[in-house]
């Protein structure tokens, strides 16, 4: 039971990734595909953040040793646990995945913006945002270029 609970995050992330990827590869609408791509990218972040969580940890913003906040954070924990895994009496979660995912989120929004901009231009050029229709039009164009000769 506890194995399932403590690995639930990873399974949930896997399903979210699959959902995102499924929308990207199966949908024909370009905008919908971008939404799927955004979900796919966001779920990667969830994986990293899950890896960096520390039980009973707190966000990696150091707390003053004298502040009441610090007492509140530490007093319900096993002192041995705090001594081994804490820094200066407080257990913090791992900051590194947070840094990486901040970067990844930024990359995600950049991709989203550029992708949508291209999709808008596709609509202006082809009159459609459905991949199948665009494909037919492109094929037609290639074939026409061939038959004129």
């Amino acid at each position, binding site marked *: 039971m506890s194995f399932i609970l403590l690995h639930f995050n990873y399974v949930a992330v896997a399903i979210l990734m699959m959902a995102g990827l499924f929308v990207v590869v199966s949908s024909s609408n370009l905008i919908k595909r971008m939404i799927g791509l955004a979900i796919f990218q966001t779920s990667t972040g969830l994986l990293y953040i899950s890896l960096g969580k520390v039980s009973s940890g*707190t*966000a990696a*913003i150091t707390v003053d040793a004298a502040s009441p*906040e610090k007492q*509140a*954070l530490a007093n319900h924990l096993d002192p041995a646990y705090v001594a081994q895994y804490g820094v200066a009496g407080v257990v913090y979660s791992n900051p590194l995945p947070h840094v990486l995912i901040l970067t990844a989120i930024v990359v995600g929004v950049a991709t989203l913006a550029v992708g949508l901009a291209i999709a808008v231009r596709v609509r202006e050029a082809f009159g459609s945002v459905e991949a199948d229709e665009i494909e037919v039009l492109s094929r037609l164009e290639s074939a026409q270029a061939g038959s004129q000769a």
Partner: protein
Amino acid sequence: MLLAAGAAGLLVAMTITIARAIMGPSHYDRILAVNSFGTKTVLLLSVIGFVFGRPAFLDIAIIYAPINFVTTIALMKFFRYRSLAQPLGLSAGEETLDD
């Protein structure tokens, strides 16, 4: 304990709001749901800041309310004006585009 109960209650309320957002039926219902969901999120963020002993994270709650507002206005303009560029306060939006 009371705070945890509060957080749990807010989670239930959020779930119900999501149900409305999924069901629709009209898009206005969805906007309403997302707006109301945003408010509940702000509350939940504030409450869990206290539950976990780090009220410093209220900053996120503070900024979320205005961002939610911006999104709602954008959604509303989408329906009313079919344009994000029009100034508010003009009726239907169609004729105002002409020079």
